[in-house]
């Protein structure tokens, strides 16, 4: 299989998934609305005091992003497994890991990227200063793809199970904790005007690690789930 063939397969899989997703774009909005609503809950539950909200905003935004990415996983592989197209992907001559990576990339483009785009809206609502918005968006830009990749492994493992939903969060959340730590830290450092680059570099390193290893775990898991 030539390299061009791999690139072609990757691009066409991403395109196909995006087209399917845009046909049902109502589904795309749910995780985003969930993200905004969770961030709304905190002022109501904790306190509307602006200085307090400013202090907890990095953590609140990151926890909301983590939960919303968990919620978005419901649409990742399930429909393909249900209608049998996943079996065709397994049987295709292209490597399964590559195709699943393409599906995860498409999934991130419709769930993670919009979340990065609307995060300043929620951040301003929590009284986060403008200086920290850049670090927030950058940390989400680096962190949400990792969440999608880890989540994709969990989804691939649980896709055929009846009680998959609750189990998925039990599997994915512990693995996602380092991302949460560094993402929230990077934002928090920018908030207290410390240079956040160290935490951002570590997030980037974790993204590279996840990009290189996660597709193989996903492929192995999907093969087991479809057995």
């Amino acid at each position, binding site marked *: 299989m030539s390299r061009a063939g791999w690139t072609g397969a990757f691009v066409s899989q991403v395109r196909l998934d995006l087209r399917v997703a845009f046909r049902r774009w109502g589904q795309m909005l749910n995780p985003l609305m969930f993200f905004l609503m969770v961030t709304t809950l905190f002022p109501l539950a904790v306190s509307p005091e602006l200085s307090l909200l400013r202090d907890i905003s990095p953590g609140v935004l990151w926890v909301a992003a983590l939960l919303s990415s968990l919620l978005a996983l419901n649409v990742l592989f399930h429909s393909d497994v249900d209608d049998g197209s996943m079996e065709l992907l397994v049987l295709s001559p292209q490597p399964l890991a590559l195709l699943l990576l393409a599906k995860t990339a498409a999934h991130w483009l419709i769930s993670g990227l919009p979340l990065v785009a609307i995060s300043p809206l929620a951040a301003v609502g929590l009284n986060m200063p403008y200086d920290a918005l850049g670090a927030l968006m950058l940390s989400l830009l680096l962190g949400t793809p990792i969440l999608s990749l880890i989540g994709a*492994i969990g989804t691939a*493992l*649980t896709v055929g*199970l009846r*009680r998959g939903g609750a*189990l998925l969060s*039990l*599997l994915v*959340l*512990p*693995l996602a*904790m*380092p991302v949460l*730590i*560094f993402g929230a*830290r990077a934002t928090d*450092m920018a908030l207290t005007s410390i240079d956040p680059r160290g935490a951002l570099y*570590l997030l980037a390193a*974790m993204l590279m*690690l996840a990009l290189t*290893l996660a597709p193989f*775990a996903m492929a*192995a*898991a999907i093969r*087991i*789930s479809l*057995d």
Partner: protein
Amino acid sequence: MWKFFHQFASPPHFYRLAGNIYPWFGWAALIVIVASSYGGLVWAPPDYQQGDGFRIIYVHVPSAWMSMFIYVYMAISAGIGLIWRIKLAHAMAAASAPLGASFTFLALVTGSIWGKPMWGTWWVWDARLTSELILLFLYLGYMALRSSIEDTNRADRASAVLALVGVVNVPIIHYSVEWWHTLHQGPTVTKFAAPSITVEMLLPMLTMMLGFTLYFFALLLMSVRGEVLQRERHSKWINEYV
């Protein structure tokens, strides 16, 4: 050598062998644990700061060691089972998970019992406590995944993938939690930076770690025997034993 492995991995042979070996591990564990308890509770001098309160580390540190050792052991067994398709290795991984979770729980409980008089609170978000807690969640996730797949063969392989993903993540989690902790402002707990431990205190702890490891293998062999019986309940050789 391959013949040996092949023979070792055959369920009837293993069942017999494990039945012969586990009492040895059990007795050795009992002797070592009793001896190190004496060393830890009587022979070791009281700490100049913490008095006799520090002696809980003779349970706490070995449990924490076991919690990590068993996770790695479980992941290696799962990997062997996945790569060479050895059912016995999967049975080993399956049997080690509850044991590992119990040791992790024990480490957390003893840690917080120790923390109450020393730090004045049951729980602090200390780096080690936190990563131990996440490790407990990893064990629970592994067990939950295994129990929710009915087909044994599929459950074995799916949970093996999860164990391998987890073992890649364990160092990342450990160091990120440590880093998170050192970065956090506010009250920091630096009682760990006590002067280095004396030989009388250290030696019983090391032997206790050995004792816990022997105890783990005794329990593991017993519970793998149970696993093997359950998995092979339809095969003929079982009639000889049951």
